[in-house]
């Protein structure tokens, strides 16, 4: 014992290193392979250490690009995305992405520089209270007070970000902390007495759910992003198949259950399928798994699953009972809970009548649109995308009409292929997120499906495609407008298109060319197909500007304040 104690002392004394080097060591301990970032004054010591460490660093052209890229990376790899930005404006430029990651439970560890400790609070150059600013939009955040605390804080941050209900954790590092010397030592076990997420479900509640399935006639499974975060796809499939329970999905849960499975009735919610929404409206047992009953899913709560006993499985106890009263609350990780459910299965019940009813809805009232030979319909565009990529690509979207069409028509049969900004609805998210996804999964084709509005919010990241020769295909669903805003103005504001029409646009093909990237404008199905096939085989970045029908609307639709059964435009 004594010898080892002496040895430990020696390593401590002989290896004083700077805070910046502790930062690099911390990243290596967490097996971080890439950092998305942007340098600046307060992080100069850290960037100097990065230079020497030769850590892979993706330099985006704006901090917002860095954080969305990290989100895309996290979504497809399951590992926390790592972001580095400087103090003040560098840090505040991250705020949108942090809020986005928080509401969609994406694991991120964000490092921001800060002015030196002795000038904090003096309104120093590039000082912003980023810890105060991000307190309500992070799972947790820290400001490092002593260099020697950094290894512990980093270990805690990675743990907090990627366990329980995942989310962003921010670490603010004052410039002098990155310079100060501290001992390089291993961090012993984590000590977080206030953070113990419940993974295993209460077995009594699991039993109650199995019992409820014995008496139910019309059960439905509503599956969300929690299934994907827990990697519980297999368990979900086994559970649904054993009892033959129909499955509907949230926007963020797409891919958690194969879209081509006979028990899958598609996406529910504002632009969901008729079958999925009627399943939620009519069911007598609603089993929510890793979904948070967001208002875009439920519509008017007075009409939501009113005839149903509600069972809710979620890793976050605060989600249970938040929006809808819950009879069977199960706090636990989706994987563990579904395992427990599969181990304690009751008798197989007969839900045949229910399944037949929903299947009738599905076949008689599928998602539909009016084809037109002369025009490129955006829905058709998504179908072509699916066809050309054989449904195997990673699809990343912005927010708006194109997002809904992608969700509706690019059917996902594999998990972790779908990246979208759900809760926050962040325009400008899709393209940088696709960059992060390609960095995380270089083996898969990655398509950024963006609107002409959203793309113009973060298109400077074309510089990253050029820089890294990343074969991301940008598909611009170009309707020369902020389509979803325009649609709402058409339906609810008597066609007063207030500031939603974008007639003046850059030539996106020339813009791509300016970055040394090949591009093409497509105005019909054939041109789309050809360009996509060429882009996929070229393994080079590509920008495809698709001129789609400008006044096409997303249907079906549930108007605000209406119930799930009051869909409009079901027949296209």
């Amino acid at each position, binding site marked *: 014992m004594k010898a080892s104690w002496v040895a430990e002392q020696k390593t401590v004394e002989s290896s004083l290193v700077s805070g910046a080097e502790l930062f690099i060591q911390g990243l290596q301990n967490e097996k971080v392979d890439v950092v998305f970032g942007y340098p600046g004054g307060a992080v100069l010591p850290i960037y100097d250490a990065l230079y020497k460490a030769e850590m892979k660093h993706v330099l985006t052209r704006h901090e917002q690009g860095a954080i969305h890229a990290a989100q895309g990376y996290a979504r497809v790899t399951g590992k926390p995305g790592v972001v580095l930005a400087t103090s003040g404006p560098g840090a505040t430029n991250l705020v949108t992405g942090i809020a986005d990651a928080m509401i969609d439970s994406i694991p991120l560890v964000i490092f921001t520089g800060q002015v030196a400790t002795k000038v904090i609070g003096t309104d120093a150059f590039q000082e912003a209270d980023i810890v105060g600013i991000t307190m309500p939009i992070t799972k*947790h955040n820290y400001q490092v007070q002593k260099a020697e605390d950094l290894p512990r804080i980093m270990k805690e941050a990675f743990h*907090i970000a990627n366990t329980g209900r995942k989310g962003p954790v921010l670490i603010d590092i004052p410039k002098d902390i990155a310079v100060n010397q501290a001992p390089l030592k291993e961090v012993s076990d984590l000590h977080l007495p*206030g953070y113990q997420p419940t993974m295993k479900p209460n077995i009594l509640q699991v039993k109650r759910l199995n019992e409820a399935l014995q008496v139910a006639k019309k059960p439905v499974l509503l599956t969300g992003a929690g299934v994907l975060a827990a990697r519980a796809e297999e368990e979900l499939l086994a559970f649904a198949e054993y009892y033959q329970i129909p499955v509907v999905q949230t926007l963020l849960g797409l891919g958690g259950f194969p879209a081509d499975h006979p028990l899958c009735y598609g996406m529910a919610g504002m632009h969901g399928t008729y079958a999925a929404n009627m399943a939620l409206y009519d069911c007598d047992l609603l089993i929510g798994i890793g979904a948070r009953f967001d208002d875009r899913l439920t519509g008017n709560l007075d009409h939501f699953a009113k005839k149903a006993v509600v069972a809710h499985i979620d890793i976050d106890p605060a989600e249970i*009972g938040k929006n809808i009263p*819950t009879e069977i609350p199960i706090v636990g990780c989706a994987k563990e809970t579904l395992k427990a459910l599969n181990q304690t299965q009751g008798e197989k019940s007969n839900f045949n009548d229910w399944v037949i009813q929903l299947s009738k809805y599905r076949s008689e009232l599928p998602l539909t649109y009016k084809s037109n030979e002369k025009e490129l319909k955006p829905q058709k565009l998504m179908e072509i995308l699916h066809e050309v990529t054989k449904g195997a690509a990673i699809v990343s979207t912005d927010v708006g009409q194109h997002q809904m069409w992608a969700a509706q028509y690019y059917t996902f049969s594999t998990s972790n292929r779908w990246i979208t900004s759900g809760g926050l609805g962040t325009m400008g998210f899709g393209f940088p997120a696709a960059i992060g996804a390609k960095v995380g999964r270089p083996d898969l084709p990655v398509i950024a499906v963006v609107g002409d509005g959203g793309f113009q919010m973060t298109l400077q990241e074309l510089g990253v495609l050029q820089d890294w020769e990343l074969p991301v295909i940008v598909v611009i669903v170009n309707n020369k407008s902020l389509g979803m805003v325009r649609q709402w103005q058409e339906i609810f504001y008597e066609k007063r298109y207030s500031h939603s029409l974008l007639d003046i646009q850059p030539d996106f093909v020339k813009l791509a060319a300016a970055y040394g990237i090949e591009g093409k404008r497509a105005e019909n199905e054939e041109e789309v197909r050809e360009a996509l096939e060429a882009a996929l085989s070229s393994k080079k970045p590509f920008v495809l500007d698709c001129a789609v029908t400008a006044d096409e609307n997303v249907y079906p639709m549930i108007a605000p304040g209406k119930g799930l059964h009051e869909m409009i435009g079901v027949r296209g």
Partner: protein
Amino acid sequence: MRRIISATVLNESGVLNRLTGLLTKRQFNIENITVGHTEDPAVSKVTLTVWVEDDRKAEQLVKQLHKQINILKVRDLTNMALVSRELALIKVLTTPDTRSEIKMLIEPFRATVLDVSLENVTLEVTGDSEKVDALIELLRPYGIKEISRTGLTAIPRGTQKKVLELHPYSIM
């Protein structure tokens, strides 16, 4: 309804900010809040009184607080048998005629006189909020110059009612 919530928190910088920020974000209105050290110097206790619409809101509040990494334990004390106290300092205008009258008045409240000047006296009273309210109302006709109240702090009694008699939450 009024709820008394007690939270045990790590004594770190920013934790109070985190707690009150969360309440603001979720639209809970704090009526009063007290913070102080506990038997463990690394741990502080926050007692807060909030108005909530219904039990579901109260449950949501407790759960959201509990999610914070440096909040260790959260308890809704409202339905528990508890002892709660608040301290108030009250400065009342006096004349030579009313001075002894006020002294008589405050006696049943076990309030004490802390300071006397020619024009006023300063009193200290401790008790539950209703008792403090009652004394203030009694003194109001004399002219109250200043009041400073600490807000409520509370601790559950050593002996509690049986759990079955308590209002159950759907999950805690």
